[in-house]
């Protein structure tokens, strides 16, 4: 099977797609910046892990999924949820612990769920979502082959980090997905660090995409700061999955611009490294691309930016105004019988 590094991508994006992707990336960035503010103002609690810097991965992959496709995420899940269409209001309200949140205030930042949007969850334990996503992919195959569903095959996109790729669940799930040719994308967001552990100190093989070789499935490494490249790689993997050709491992090289969580002092990553990656910011990079391709003017992008600012203001206001879940409902939802 092909193990490849994707260098330069000729785009497969149409103008409409490109603008939707841009909007999604801005949504993710502005949402997360606002989260940081709200956290420091004491509006949200616990461990809050921001995604800033990695937007090209979420937007590049999820923008190509339909409403019937599935996404699974980690504790760094806000932006995957937004990309999958969970309203900013519902995500923000969840972070505020409100009844209107996408997990009704029970889950919090690390446990975002939306059955309606086929968001299988934020999973707080590292690698916990990988087997679960393998399960949704199994269901999609079952739907086709046992229940003879006539529609196109649903696809699952499973997101996790470099650190998770050293966990047994990653290998065990890839094996099963390859064995049964499940329609799934294993998207490893290699941001070089798992908390304070440098990837090079945690994995004997630094190129994660090469681990696909062991399961005889395609493994691709892509510049995760370039949404055009991510889009292209994901498109091929999605097509393969829908055609019944099985899983793909995508390693997206990326970087988080903030500490591991808002509680992390972020003392171990050196300044130079951070600055180098800052220069790779996927958003200005994509803006340039859009100008170059004549797909948008600065004015048009600015107006998208403004719309997003307004949407996030609205989400915060909504979260603030929303009620807390009633304490006497504390036992609600424990069992399947609870409505």
């Amino acid at each position, binding site marked *: 099977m092909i193990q490849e590094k994707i260098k330069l991508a000729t785009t497969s994006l149409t103008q409409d797609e490109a603008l939707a992707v841009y909007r999604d990336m801005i949504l993710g960035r502005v949402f997360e910046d606002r989260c940081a503010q709200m956290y420091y103002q004491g509006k949200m*609690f*616990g461990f809050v892990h921001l995604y800033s810097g990695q937007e090209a991965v979420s937007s590049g992959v999820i923008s190509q999924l339909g409403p019937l496709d599935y996404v699974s995420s980690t504790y760094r899940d806000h932006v995957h949820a937004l990309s999958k269409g969970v309203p900013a209001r519902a995500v923000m309200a969840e972070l505020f612990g409100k009844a209107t949140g996408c997990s009704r205030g029970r889950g919090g930042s690390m446990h975002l769920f939306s059955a309606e949007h086929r968001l299988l969850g934020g999973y707080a334990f590292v690698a916990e979502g990988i087997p679960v996503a393998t399960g949704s992919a199994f269901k999609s195959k079952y739907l086709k082959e046992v229940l003879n569903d006539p529609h196109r095959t649903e696809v699952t996109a499973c997101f996790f980090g470099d*650190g998770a790729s050293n966990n047994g669940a990653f290998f065990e799930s890839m094996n099963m997905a390859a064995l049964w040719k499940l329609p799934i994308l294993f998207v490893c967001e290699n941001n070089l660090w*798992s908390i304070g*552990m440098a990837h090079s100190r*945690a994995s004997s093989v630094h190129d994660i995409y090469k681990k696909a070789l062991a399961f005889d499935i395609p493994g691709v490494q892509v510049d995760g700061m370039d949404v055009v490249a991510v889009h292209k790689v994901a498109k091929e993997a999605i097509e393969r999955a829908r055609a019944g050709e099985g899983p793909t491992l995508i390693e997206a090289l990326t970087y988080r611009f903030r500490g591991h969580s808002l509680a992390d002092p972020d003392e171990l990553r050196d300044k130079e490294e951070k600055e180098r990656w800052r220069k790779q910011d996927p958003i200005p990079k994509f803006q340039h691309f859009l100008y170059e391709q004549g797909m948008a003017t600065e004015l048009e992008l600015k107006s998208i930016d403004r719309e997003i600012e307004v949407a996030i203001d609205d989400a915060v206001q909504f979260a603030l105004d929303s009620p807390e879940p009633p304490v006497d409902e504390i036992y609600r939802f424990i069992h399947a019988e609870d409505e």
Partner: protein
Amino acid sequence: MASRLFFEALRDAIVEEMDRDPNVFVLGEDVGHYGGSYKVTKDLHRKYGELRMLDTPIAEASFSGLAVGAAMCGLRPILEGMNMGFLLLAFSQIANNGGMLRYTSGGQFTVPMVVRGPGGVGRQLGAEHSQRLEAYFYAVPGLKIVAPSTPKEAKGLLKAAIRDNNTVLFFEHVLLYNLREDIPEDDDFIIPLGKANVLREGEDITIVSYSRMVHHCLQAVDSLVAEGYEPEVIDLRTLKPLDLETIGKSLKKTHRLLIVEEDYKTGGLGGEIIALIDEHYFDELDAPAVRLASKDIPTPYNGRMEAVTIPQPEDIIREAKKLMEA
């Protein structure tokens, strides 16, 4: 005496025991360069090097198994669970090997390993980061389980746990790491495992607790004392083996028992203790023993719901009074 924070007391214990015995080493996620998620092993990799302060990949099941193997062959691992909850992934290796392997090998191998780290309900960390695994592990034969309540306790008990030749699970509470206390400056300051601590003597009721809930009990006791009651308070320290004798001795005075625990009511320690009291001290009780535990729900993120999930001082006051007036 030295004034130490809880996490510093743990570090002191580790340093003293590592200096004392070159076979003692630490492993876990981010224990080295990062210094541990709650700074317990901060900077120790500089002193002991990478192999004695071993940063592991995120592979709980396998690095726990690795620790077991190293322990079987003569080393004395201190395994840090970045959060003890994550060790659910290592349940098999801890239970099957840490707990049972000495027996299944007919006494040929021992697994002198300490498994320590933060747990309990913190501040809105969500269900998966708010686990109380002591009850999950309680039934496993061969394990010892410790849950300290103060820095001094933490130091003395951790040193005992490191010197113990069994697998000891050592549960630290996330909300206690910044507690401060004076600790004797003595390399051989040890608090033996298996002995409970009578924190306050009294005749009216026996309140048994451990870890963070001890502090909730003491807060409640202040109010009860102000109202003229004289409760006796016992900090279990070691949950397994349980110091039933100290509880029994207390019941001979008070004849009333209230257990306060942060784990779930169903399948929690309280139920076990009450069953043992029934077996051994039934005649001493003037009223049915009561347990105050967490509600049987995954810990909700919402702050108000979370607070209601665990026992609060006012709950302790209410239940204690009911019992004393029964």
